[in-house]
């Protein structure tokens, strides 16, 4: 019995230490992220291939230095409803990565990536990720766009069901990239390892401002600004988290039309059947 208590106390203590990290903050005091326009919003939404490619470029050149995206595979880059790489292009991207593997004799080797491989993580394990980042492991980005959001509160959450506002995640990510303030507002006590972010719960984020204007080169004439980067990378992360969104909305429309017609037919059948008794 005492053993259990001790263990439970230990878990509880561990979790309290954990909440003392950024996630603890009162959600209420964080500013609501500004609403962005997304090509994938609404009933006919679709990912913008060019935007996903730009976002991928940012992930590759900047985010991937600290953030893994372990559920994403190189073959996904050429999947339907994605960034629209050809298979050859996806293969070329894969070949630029070094993948840890074993050879025929069981020796550890590094070989060039293939389509079937997953994006390799920047750190060997979570402890290494923590040690290299001041004690906080950068979160994996595979599902990040669905794992973040903010409370809309009453009555907005009811309207959101009708207007299909489902982009709290990408809105939040874009806001974080844009939300750094240096120096922090007067009176805010920022720990030495932290950075002030207007949209982060509790405002003290471990991540330094990740992007500066002009940092990532675009070859399609899109403005090379942090505002643009933030949207492109958020769109890319939304695709990484929800790769079948295009198909979902396309099939959804077909299903809705079918159900509406079917319901209409049943309505008139019902009327006809019941006309005798009423």
């Amino acid at each position, binding site marked *: 019995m005492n053993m259990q208590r001790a*263990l439970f106390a230990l878990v509880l203590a561990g979790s309290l230490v954990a909440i003392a990290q950024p996630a*603890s903050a009162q959600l209420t005091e964080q500013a609501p992220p500004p609403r962005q326009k997304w090509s994938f919003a609404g009933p006919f939404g679709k990912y913008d291939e060019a935007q996903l490619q730009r976002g991928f470029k940012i992930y590759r050149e900047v985010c991937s230095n600290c953030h893994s995206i372990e559920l994403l595979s190189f073959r996904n880059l050429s999947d339907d409803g994605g960034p629209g790489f050809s298979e050859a292009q996806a293969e070329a991207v894969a070949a630029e990565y070094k993948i840890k593997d074993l050879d025929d004799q069981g020796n550890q080797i590094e070989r060039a990536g293939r389509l079937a491989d997953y994006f390799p993580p920047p750190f060997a394990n979570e402890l290494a990720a923590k040690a290299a980042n001041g004690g906080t492991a950068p979160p994996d980005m595979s599902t990040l766009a669905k*794992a973040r959001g903010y409370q809309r509160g009453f009555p907005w959450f009811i309207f959101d069901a009708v207007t299909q506002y489902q982009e709290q995640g990408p809105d939040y990510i874009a806001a974080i990239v844009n939300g750094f303030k240096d120096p922090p507002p007067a009176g805010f006590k920022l720990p030495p390892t932290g950075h002030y972010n207007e949209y982060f719960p509790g405002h003290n984020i471990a991540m330094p401002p990740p992007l500066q204007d002009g940092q990532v080169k675009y070859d399609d004439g899109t403005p090379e600004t942090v505002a643009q980067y933030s949207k492109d990378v958020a769109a890319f992360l939304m695709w990484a988290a929800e790769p079948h969104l295009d198909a979902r909305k396309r099939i959804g429309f077909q299903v809705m039309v079918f159900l509406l017609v079917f319901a209409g037919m049943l309505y008139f059948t019902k009327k006809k059947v019941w006309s005798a008794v009423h």
Partner: protein
Amino acid sequence: MSGHSTYQPTNRALIWLEKRLPIGGLIHSSFIAYPTPRNLNYWWTFGGILSFMLGVQIITGIILAMHYTPHVDLAFKSVETIMRDVNFGWLLRYLHANGAAMFFLAVYIHMFRGMYYGSYKEPREVLWILGVILYLLMMATGFMGYVLVWGQMSFWAATVITNLFSAIPVVGDTIVTWLWGGYAVGNPTLNRFYSLHYLLPFVIAGVVVLHVWALHVAGQNNPTGIEPKSDKDTVPFTPYATVKDGFLIVCFCLVYAWFVFYIPNYLGHPDNYIPANPAVTPAEIVPEWYYLPFYAILRSIPNKLLGVIALFSSIGILAFLPWLDTSKVRSARYRPLYRQFFWLFVIAAVGLGWLGSKPPEGIYVILARVFTFYYFAFFLIVLPLLGIFEKTKPLPNSISESVLGAKA
């Protein structure tokens, strides 16, 4: 109620079968000739909707189970594999996750309908109690299904809910250890939840058979709350009820499809897309929306043991409803006072749901206590007394009079 079968097969194979196993006659008397009151409104279609949803959940669930791995290191990843690499896996998973929510939406409407029209009263007490058992089974099944995702909210919901049992004096901690299969929520917990999550839907299906059986013995209640007296008061189940149920099932599917295809994560919590991590407690632990009223009741009481007792009593009390309501009149149509208390009850229940999603502080706690008090007072004070003091309106002589009289 369904009386002797009028089923007369003409096909020789069917005649042969009927002599040996009269299953055709059973289906015929239960779903074709079965007399249903002619005045049923659309609130009566939710039984059919619930049967449909149970079918959807079992079918999508069985296919999901083919791709899911119940292991703490692999569960979250296997769900993501379903979402990414299984053909139409995203559709199956969103159908199943939102299907649970639609199932609960339908069951709440079904229960409120039963309460409004007094469908639990003599001779339908057993029918009602079977319904309460079904609801309990649904809650257990839904909770365990939510844990299988093994995201942060799954893990911490499992921790919070199983810890409720630690409030039991003396044996509480032992029971919790037994439930977990260890000293914390872990792999044994996930494995047994998976096993039970697969088992319970079939238990539900079995109790549904009993529920429908009891229904077909007593016959359906109806908006007037008076029993059918002649053939003029009823219509055969097919085609009348079948086409009506069918129409509303398709309308219900429109709402369901809206959630699945356009806002599939609306009812979920973002934290459940973060893999379970026993070392990090989420900023807020919130159950799925359909448990929120009970969560609010639990938190509105400052003592843990009393809170847990209140939580379980709030569901258990439903089973005693047929005897707590002392009124001879069934339908709220003819009970002007009951009608008002009923709608107050709906407001309290929905209000508790909203409060369950709010932090337990300030005005929210006070409101939750007021609503919790009313929730119990409705059953323990209002219903027993109303039967004595309420002046009910005169009942129509028959169902057909109430329908055709209003038309004329």
